[in-house]
């Protein structure tokens, strides 16, 4: 799966706020998962997906496909650079808060896990339809936090089990 690794989603002429998201994937013992693949899917800064099902009247940007793939290293770490997406429509007819879709693949998981990354300091999170389906005390597992002293750097970790187990979504898979 190495040939399709994309840890920088931002091509030439792409608009939007650049962010680097880094984190670790940890198992039930808190041990690093060194063989995970993290896949990203997201809209561009206008909130438009580069996909025929997205019929919104918003601009596409040729330098941005919205797809990323990174593997974890020995410490379970991963890192990718992208832009903060714009809001896309939600199931209640209101906009969703900016978010990235994440699929996780690894040894030991017969089915992929699906989750989302939201952004901290984002007022729209409070009204987000999907976030509101999650118990308030677990919502934090979906929110990437700014790293002090490093503008544009965000941290988001995946806990497969345990007290801080990340929220995973059921897409009826």
């Amino acid at each position, binding site marked *: 799966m190495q040939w399709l690794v994309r840890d920088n989603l931002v091509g030439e002429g792409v608009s939007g706020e650049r962010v680097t998201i880094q984190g670790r994937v940890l198992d039930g013992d808190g041990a690093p998962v060194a063989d995970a693949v993290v896949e990203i899917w997201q809209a561009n800064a206008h909130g438009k997906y580069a996909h025929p099902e997205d019929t919104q009247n918003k601009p596409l940007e040729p330098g941005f496909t919205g797809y990323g793939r990174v593997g974890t290293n020995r410490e379970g770490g991963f890192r990718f650079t992208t832009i903060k997406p714009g809001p896309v429509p939600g199931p209640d007819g209101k906009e969703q808060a900016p978010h990235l879709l994440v699929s996780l693949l690894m040894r030991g998981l017969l089915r992929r896990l699906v989750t989302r990354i939201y952004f901290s300091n984002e007022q729209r999170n409070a009204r987000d339809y999907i976030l509101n389906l999650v118990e308030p005390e677990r919502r934090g597992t979906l929110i990437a936090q700014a790293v002090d002293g490093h503008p544009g750097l965000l941290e988001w970790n995946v806990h*497969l089990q345990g007290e801080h187990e990340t929220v995973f979504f059921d*897409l009826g898979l």
Partner: protein
Amino acid sequence: MTQIAGYRAPFPGTQPPHLHPTYFSSIKRAPTKPQIRIPYTLSEVTGPTFKAEIVQPKAYDLTRQHRGEPIGERIIVSGRVLDENSRPVPNTLVEIWQANAAGRYHHEVDQHNAPLDPNFSGCGHTMTDSEGRYRFVTIRPGEYPWRNHYNAWRPKHIHFSLFGPAVATRLVTQMYFPGDSLLPFDPIFNCTADEKARNRLISVFDWENTIPDEALAYRFDLILRGREATPMEE
């Protein structure tokens, strides 16, 4: 308000559970809290699409990626990618990876005491044509031991990764070979409870696509989502 058309849920037992204790690695990795069912939004019914230009021309033929030919028996693996309504899924990326003929992966973490083959890296990709067809030329992979339990061996298999039209259709699975004696003992193959669903992971011998004096052939069709969906196996 726009209603998003989603995908049908699979029948119970036709997809593996996250936790399958006989597959040892799932014990510390499978989430323990229930997953939260969410409605389909634009985010899940869209997904990455790839231009034909990214496909490397030699990538479909795993026997011609190096200076010499790999050791092993050449085989053709081909089939169709269909959606839940049996319509072909055209122009979708198909990736495969596998062990070499001796049962060794070209990967640093594979320390199995079997020879590496300098002429075989075991990775390929291609894109389905307008009728959802794909075709690979490769060599028959070997079985290999793994540490799951005492004297554990994986049956011969090829890993498949497909995107389909949406994030909701992403599928990573494994293809097996007909008549493999190890299948009844493999915890990964047997994690899908429904026998019919499980057997969809076994390719069929494909007489029509054999090439005389050159290669035998296997057919493996993949169905993304729905009643006849291919079970996942990462």
